[in-house]
């Protein structure tokens, strides 16, 4: 089991009182799973990812990552994290941004260069390594930040709406590439999205969340095969799963809708 969450609670103490971001969240993520988290804004998707990453501490329940506490897993550099905003360092070129984790983790120079070129090719940014972030479009910056998370080849990828800022066409292609990467490398991927088709297309499991307090409304195991051409999205099975996700989202919203 890569991630094991048991009855997780997380309450933020804010100036205007406590905010319960996660309530009674239990979830198992197996090695090689592609898990999508979908739900309305503010339902705790980012918070859950941050708990897994050891960036936020749960106030109740337990969570383990690779059998360790999230903090130990973080120290063991168990995961790559793609943040909701690209967050490239403005004084580093794209190439050097991608190399940042490699420098910190002590890869030698030749290896840094090789990996940087590899991952930039993967996100179709080859030739841009000497540009500064502000010289790139928002979508290109986001792709660079994905490359940065892929560079050190962690077995677990935590991706917080990585394609949220991209147009449909680029998004489709990157979805395909991500699936391809996942199939080739056998990574475990946790993926936050607002798009039902994206969640259904990519995932082996879809976690539907609902807000106030953030909790899991439904977990859907996808019946789709692992091999997925883009036109699988027109198949009956795909539409069936998408329908279930939509139902789960509607039920989770309760009286709010």
């Amino acid at each position, binding site marked *: 089991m890569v991630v094991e969450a048991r009855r997780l609670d997380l309450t933020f103490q804010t100036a205007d009182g406590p905010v319960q971001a996660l309530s009674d969240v239990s979830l198992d993520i197996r090695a090689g799973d592609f898990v999508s988290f979908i739900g309305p804004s503010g339902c705790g998707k980012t918070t859950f990812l941050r708990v897994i*990453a*050891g*960036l936020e501490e749960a106030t109740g329940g337990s969570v383990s990552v690779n059998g360790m506490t999230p903090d130990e897993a*973080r*120290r*063991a*550099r168990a*995961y*790559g*994290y793609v*943040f909701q*905003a690209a*967050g490239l*360092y*403005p*004084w*580093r*070129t794209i190439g050097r941004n991608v190399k*940042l*984790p490699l*420098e*910190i*983790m002590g890869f030698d120079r030749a290896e840094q260069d090789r990996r940087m070129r590899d991952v930039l090719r993967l996100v179709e940014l080859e*030739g*841009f*390594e*000497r*540009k*500064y972030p*502000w*010289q790139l479009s928002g979508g290109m910056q986001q792709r660079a930040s994905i490359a940065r998370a892929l560079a050190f080849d962690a077995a677990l990828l935590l991706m917080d709406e990585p394609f949220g800022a991209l147009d449909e066409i680029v998004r489709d292609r990157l979805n395909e590439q991500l699936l391809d990467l996942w199939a080739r490398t056998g990574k475990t991927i946790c993926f936050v999205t607002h798009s039902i088709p994206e969640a259904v297309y990519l995932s082996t499991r879809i976690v539907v969340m609902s807000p106030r307090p953030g909790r899991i409304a439904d977990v859907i195991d996808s019946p789709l095969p692992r091999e997925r051409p883009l036109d699988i999205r027109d198949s009956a099975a795909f539409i069936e799963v998408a329908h279930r996700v939509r139902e789960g989202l509607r039920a989770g919203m309760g009286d709010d809708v």
Partner: protein
Amino acid sequence: MSDPPLAAPGAGTGRSGRVGLLVWRISGAAGPVLAVILALLAIWYAATVWLNAQWVLDQAARADRMAGFGDILRGTLNQERPVLPAPHQVAAELWNTVALQPVTSRRSLVWHAWVTLSATLTGFGIGTVLGIALAIGIVHNRAMDMSVMPWAIASQTIPILAIAPMIIVVLNSVGVQGLLPKAIISAYLSFFPVVVGMVTGLRSPDAAQLDLMRTYSASRAQTLWKLRFPASLPYLFASLKVGVAASLVGAIVGELPTGAVRGLGARLLSGSYYGQTVQIWAALLMAAFCAALLVGLIGLIQRLTLGRMGLAR
């Protein structure tokens, strides 16, 4: 090295184009700058006549004459010990002491300026290193954060004119003389803006940038070197400009209490001793020129550094 197939902003603006732009900018700025200088000179001349007139009137009264406007004009613009020397007198003094003296001569203002500048630069170096070191300590250590800043602020509320003689006397008694006492006063004034600017700069990375470092489980030293320090550079340069000007003031003040015979401070002191106002004003202008030079130099280094880092657009 081949450029990626992407049109960079400003591509196609070749070197010659850039030089042309520079020339255009300078000539475009020349008009207003010239106008301001002329206006300042006019005000200066008017003030010279007005402030020095009393002496001419006194002279005339003693000789039982009436002084006409022409007499006043002639009598005020070329006095030997005027209240306010005229611009051309200061210019002549500068010419005599800068251009007509070998720079190694004690009568050369350049030589005096260099004496002060060497103390300024030494002090500025000490102050900058000290300021950066303190800022790093303050940012990384809660106890230092609580304890150092109040002392640093308190140190700046003591008038430098009060503490400078003490520093000089104390150091003198242990046999330290010459450049070092002045440099220490200069460092005393310049470390403060560096501390304040660097603390702000080292704390400028936002939560997301710091979180990224945490996901890599980066050490504090790595976070400092790869995130906090580069992020702080724009702040550092801003405070270095303030700091270097303060350093110069410190070095000049450091020359006053001992009756030093070398340096711009010594020129100011001996000038006021003997009522040589022309000499004082020449030394003041030289000090102002040195300050402009130092600040300009830091501005240049700033442009080059931040440009290389892709931070100056």
